[in-house]
């Protein structure tokens, strides 16, 4: 009796710490301590949960030693692997790592539902029905996240679609629901039926995610994150554990909001992402861009920037792929030392998910008060001498403002073309993620610096260093 009271008390504190920690994440100043508090809460929750061992259900009593050993093993295994993998994953691969951890949470939620469905007579059918729904959502989140991971990790290259995909998806979903409720109503505690149910749910997750293009994966991951939250919240009800209910539901609603925000930043609706098969439209004939591409030497561009008054840098995923963030910040520090005002303009979807570019720049040591969001900086391009675009394409394409036929029409973009001079560092003449031509590159005030971002930046740094070294030598 007292034990239950103790665990319940710990759970209240844990729920508070998780909410408070999440709230502290609203500002970069308090975020670090916020997640620390949440972490302490989580640890307390797990330790308290181990106390269940002292008070298990009567029919589990004979197995309690074996179960306790299994629990310790499982905790060590999960924790050890995740800590090891999470500590060494490079920042560029962060989105797929989040996807895989999220999928595992969904899997755990599904496992809880499964034990509940198979368990000896928990009785109340409302509770079992909720377990079915939780298991369904958790399974979809698990298999969907794994597919999302494979796509972002480029293990699964092309979106694969089959004829009548939506019809098939609907049928599988229906089958999963029917099977799920049969496990309660028709054949309770039948392992075979339950297995079929989970199989159908997992299959639905795969089918649902396969047709979606890689560019949309962040939205999908965010959605599955919310799904796992909901599944955990429902499991919380099934287990009569309010801490799970609260934490799960908070993630469910927060994740849903985040999904909508992300989709909006990409000028898409969530429904559009899930069902519209983006990427298939990119092949439509584009209004040919007029003019010629003007190549520029890295050193010339560097010297031009050295004598500029104000430079705005617009980085994209290409920068991260080339692992050139550190070199970029080195260049920026040189420019700052020479009295140039430098700012970073980060598009909401630069990188692989909203905010990803901020993380990558932060990794290179760029202070976050130099980084500006789209709305805060867009007007400043008008009085900037140079806009330096590195590895970004679609997010600086002026077609989004003017060309109604463009698939990215209406997407908010960085107005780099308003700067006096634009330099674009680009590996080749390839197209952006959306597969469309970029009119910016043909603009009269734009010059292309071809080459790997890292190599180009090294040349630029060298050019500026030579320039400052010369007067002293003379």
């Amino acid at each position, binding site marked *: 009796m007292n034990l*239950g009271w103790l*665990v319940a008390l710990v759970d209240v504190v844990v729920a508070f710490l998780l909410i408070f*920690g*999440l709230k502290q994440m*609203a500002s*970069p100043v308090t975020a*670090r301590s916020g*997640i620390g508090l949440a*972490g302490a809460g*989580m640890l307390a929750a797990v330790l308290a*949960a181990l106390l269940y061992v002292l*008070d*298990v259900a009567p*029919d*589990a009593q004979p*197995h309690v030693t074996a179960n306790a050993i*299994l*629990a310790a093993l*499982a905790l060590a295994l*999960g*924790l050890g692997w*995740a800590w090891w993998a*999470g500590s060494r994953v490079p920042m560029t691969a*962060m989105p797929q*790592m*989040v996807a895989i*951890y*999220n999928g595992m*949470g969904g899997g*755990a*939620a*599904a*496992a*809880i539902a499964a*034990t509940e469905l*198979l*368990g000896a007579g928990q009785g109340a059918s409302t509770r079992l029905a909720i377990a079915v729904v939780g298991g369904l959502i958790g399974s979809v989140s698990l298999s969907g996240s794994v597919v999302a991971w494979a796509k972002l990790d480029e293990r699964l290259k092309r979106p694969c679609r089959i004829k009548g995909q939506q019809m098939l998806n609907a049928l599988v979903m229906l089958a999963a629901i029917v099977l799920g409720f049969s496990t309660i109503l028709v054949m309770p505690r039948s392992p075979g039926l339950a297995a079929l149910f989970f199989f159908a749910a997992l299959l639905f997750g795969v089918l649902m995610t396969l047709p979606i293009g890689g560019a949309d994966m962040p939205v999908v991951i*965010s959605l599955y994150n919310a799904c796992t939250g909901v599944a955990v919240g429902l*499991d919380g009800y099934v*287990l*009569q554990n309010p801490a*799970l*209910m609260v*934490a*799960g*539901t908070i*993630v469910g*609603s*927060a994740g849903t909001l*985040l999904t909508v*925000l992300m989709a909006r930043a990409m000028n898409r609706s969530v429904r559009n992402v899930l069902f519209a098969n983006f990427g298939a439209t990119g092949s439509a004939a584009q209004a040919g861009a007029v003019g010629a591409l003007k190549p520029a030497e890295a050193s010339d561009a560097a010297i031009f920037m050295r004598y500029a008054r104000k430079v705005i840098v617009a980085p994209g995923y290409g920068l991260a792929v080339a692992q050139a963030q550190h070199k970029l910040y080195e260049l920026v520090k040189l420019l700052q030392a020479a009295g140039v005002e430098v700012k970073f303009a980060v598009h*909401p979807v630069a990188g692989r998910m*909203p*905010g990803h570019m*901020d*993380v990558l720049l*932060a990794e290179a*040591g760029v*202070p976050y*008060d130099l980084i500006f969001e789209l709305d805060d900086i867009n007007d400043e391009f008008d009085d900037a001498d140079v806009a330096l675009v590195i590895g970004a394409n679609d997010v600086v394409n002026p077609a989004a403002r003017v060309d109604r036929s463009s698939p990215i029409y209406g997407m908010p973009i960085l107005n780099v073309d308003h700067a006096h001079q634009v330099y674009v560092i680009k590996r080749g003449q390839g197209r952006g993620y959306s597969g469309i031509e970029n009119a910016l590159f043909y603009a009269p005030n734009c010059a292309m610096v071809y080459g790997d971002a890292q190599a180009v930046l090294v040349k630029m740094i060298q050019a500026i260093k030579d320039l400052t070294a010369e007067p002293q030598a003379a």
Partner: protein
Amino acid sequence: MTLQLTITGFVAIYIFMLAAFTGYEVISRVPAILHTPLMSGSNFVHGIVVVGALYALLNATSLTEQIIGFVGVVLGAANAAGGYVVTIRMLEMFKVSHSRTGEKVT
């Protein structure tokens, strides 16, 4: 159930409703710069599922339940630990420019 808590239908709905609003409010004030850490952070928060999985495993009565419970605890623990380590790694990188106490040590 060992806990002396019983959450009946309507109380559950109240909890779900209030928690949903809380989640919405907490997130709506976060700047876009923190969206990725935040997604990872909320991913960590639902790692609390490991608590439920532990309960299921400790109360397992058959081999099937033990296997499922074991898998659940492994996955849940990985969700919590992985979410935490990834989030904290990201947040540790955010710095302000005037507190330039040396370059980042890697």
